[in-house]
């Protein structure tokens, strides 16, 4: 299955570019999500006060 996917990507290299864009956005999303998590914790602490 893995070699089939690689073969498909080799034949249709635009999907490699799309996959790379997806990887970049997943990385940025994880960082923003982590920041949002920190903000929620701060909000919670402020409410408890």
């Amino acid at each position: 299955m893995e070699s089939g996917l690689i073969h498909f990507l080799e034949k249709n290299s635009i999907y490699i570019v799309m996959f790379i864009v997806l990887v970049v956005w997943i990385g940025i999303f994880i960082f923003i999500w982590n920041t949002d998590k920190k903000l929620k914790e701060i909000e919670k602490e402020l409410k408890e006060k």
Partner: protein
Amino acid sequence: MSFVIIAGITFPIVPTPLYWYEFPNIPGLEEKAKIIFFHVPTAWISVIAFLMAMIYGVKYLKNKNLDDDAKSASALQLGMIFCILATVTGSIWAKFTWGAFWHWDPRETSIFILLLIYGSLLALRSAIENEDKRARLSAVYSIIAFLTVPFFIFIMPRIMTGLHPGSANDDNAGPIVDFKMNANMMLIFYLSLIAFTILYFWIWKIRYKTIIIDEKIHKNN
């Protein structure tokens, strides 16, 4: 940013571009050449982030203001994320262009060393409880660490032979950005650099404000 993503993916690559929306064919890369709009900006942002970590490290040592340390820490975290993204995206591209995910090419080796240097800095930061001590050590480390960045990003991969475009034995006689892209491709490339830079500053600002507020709340407790 949306324009860059849409244009970067959908504009066709043709042997002789006639219209404004066509990109030239780069032999051996074809559609894969479009990675330049997304991979290069991630590496560019990591250099900017490490530079800012150093600048705010110097500021901290001068003013002893913990807000500067928060700005430096935020830049360090973002620099690390973008450095990882540059490594992963480059590695995916390498699999389909050079045949394997990793070759220990000078460019790959240099980014791996940078990941180790800055990974150690983040580990060091998380190991120190005392805020002032952590800020002081981190500032000194980020200044020393940044001295290696121009060598590993701009010098070493260009004076050594390797597979990456821009290496000493590159048949193109220079970085790929200099001459093989037409004006239209260059425009999208520079727009991408600008868009990623704006995105970086926006996320950096949110992140350092979060760190500052968090520190202030814990100080008051």
